């Protein structure tokens, strides 16, 4: 997922009509045409995309950590193979997205440095610990489920490389949610203790997942600009509602209880109503003060540092080979 954090304060304001280039750009957006890397674009559009796409890429990569942690402890060879495939997909998603960001004239190393320095954000959800095997079920079912809700409209994003990356990602994403639901289903059909594990995972993940869609529309400082630019298509609250409406019957099917005493079908609206969301918790997690925030970044920094000699050696080898080939020619 993992694009929520773009709606936090500090971004561009509104799109102001200015130069003829800008007018032409706005007209293309209005016609729903794709903007490509070498086309003229307003600096604020470019910056917003760099921020959103890189945050999204960081989220995919940091998102590998809570699940990667369970690969060695998967309960069967089948589950282990599935989990490895999923985590590998997430690494690929990170790559597609970094590549899309790079088309905007930024370097991958700089983006990764920004993450490691705490200057770039990633989805709040990955700051929570995966405590039991049931969490692998809850993450796939709920976190990837929320990701799909959020990512499908991004396939129509006005920036071509981002839209194309999202199409590829969405194709791969649906197996993620299904394998998670499948884990939950197995636990819920198992012993009472296993079912309790599933309930416990739902209890811990539900509210962080509901928060994942980002702050309410009323507080989303620059949703307006990203909507006008065709980057964002559906508001945070609408996506959240869609997710809740789709998920409640799935929880019922599992025989699990969603930890919200206010959750109730509203016949008039044709949607579920939910209780109040703890936004302080969300802002803490986004701001790097979630339960696992420090550990996540430390793990990424360690991986980057410990892999440095491999990257340098490969590059030195490639340069030597190229020099030798030139000499021979």
């Amino acid at each position, binding site marked *: 997922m993992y694009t929520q954090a773009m709606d936090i304060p500090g971004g561009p304001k509104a799109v102001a009509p200015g130069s003829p280039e800008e007018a032409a750009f706005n007209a293309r957006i209005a016609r729903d045409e794709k903007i490509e890397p*070498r*086309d003229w674009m307003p600096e604020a559009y470019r910056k917003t995309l760099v921020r959103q796409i890189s945050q999204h890429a960081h989220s995919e990569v940091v998102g590998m950590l809570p699940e990667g942690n369970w690969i060695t402890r998967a309960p069967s060879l089948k589950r282990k193979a599935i989990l490895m495939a999923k985590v590998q997909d997430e690494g*690929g998603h990170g790559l*597609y997205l970094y590549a899309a960001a790079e088309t905007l004239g930024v*370097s991958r190393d700089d983006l990764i440095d920004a993450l490691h320095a705490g200057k770039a954000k990633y989805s709040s959800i990955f700051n929570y610990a995966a405590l039991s095997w049931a969490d692998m079920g809850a993450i796939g079912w709920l976190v990837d489920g929320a990701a799909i809700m959020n990512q499908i409209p991004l396939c129509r994003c006005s920036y071509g490389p981002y839209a*194309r990356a999202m199409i590829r990602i969405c194709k791969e994403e649906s197996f993620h949610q299904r394998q998670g639901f499948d884990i939950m289903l197995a636990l819920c059909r198992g012993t009472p203790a296993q079912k309790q594990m599933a309930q416990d995972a739902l209890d811990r993940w539900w509210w962080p997942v509901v928060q994942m869609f980002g702050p309410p529309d009323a507080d989303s400082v620059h949703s307006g600009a990203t909507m006008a630019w065709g980057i964002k298509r559906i508001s945070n609250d609408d996506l959240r509602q869609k997710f809740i409406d789709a998920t409640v019957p799935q929880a019922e099917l599992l025989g699990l209880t969603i930890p919200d005493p206010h959750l109730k079908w509203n016949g008039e609206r044709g949607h579920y109503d939910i209780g109040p969301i703890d936004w302080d918790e969300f802002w803490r997690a986004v701001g790097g003060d979630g339960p696992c925030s420090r550990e996540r970044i430390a793990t990424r920094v360690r991986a980057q540092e410990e892999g440095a000699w491999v990257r*340098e050696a*490969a*590059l030195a080898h490639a340069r030597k080979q190229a020099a030798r080939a030139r000499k021979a020619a």
Partner: protein
Amino acid sequence: MSNNEWPLWEVFIRSKQGLDHRHVGSLHAADAKQAVQMARDVYTRRMEGVSIWVVASEAITASDPDDKAELFEPMADKVYRHPTFYKLPKEVEHM
């Protein structure tokens, strides 16, 4: 730091159906051989392809977006290049 970044490669994949190689994305790799290996891992995990090309991104020459009108608009009024331009009598069923 940035000049120690592995160079960028564009990846093209031909699917099983024997169609043209199609651009699927890009990746960083130290050299061409490694780029092919990595493209295999990243872009063919679900049997998407039977052949991979990689091209150093810096070796690609692209048309200038500012020339778009000049290059492509002249085709807009040449509808006679399409079969649907020709209205044939009903008697000629398949042509």
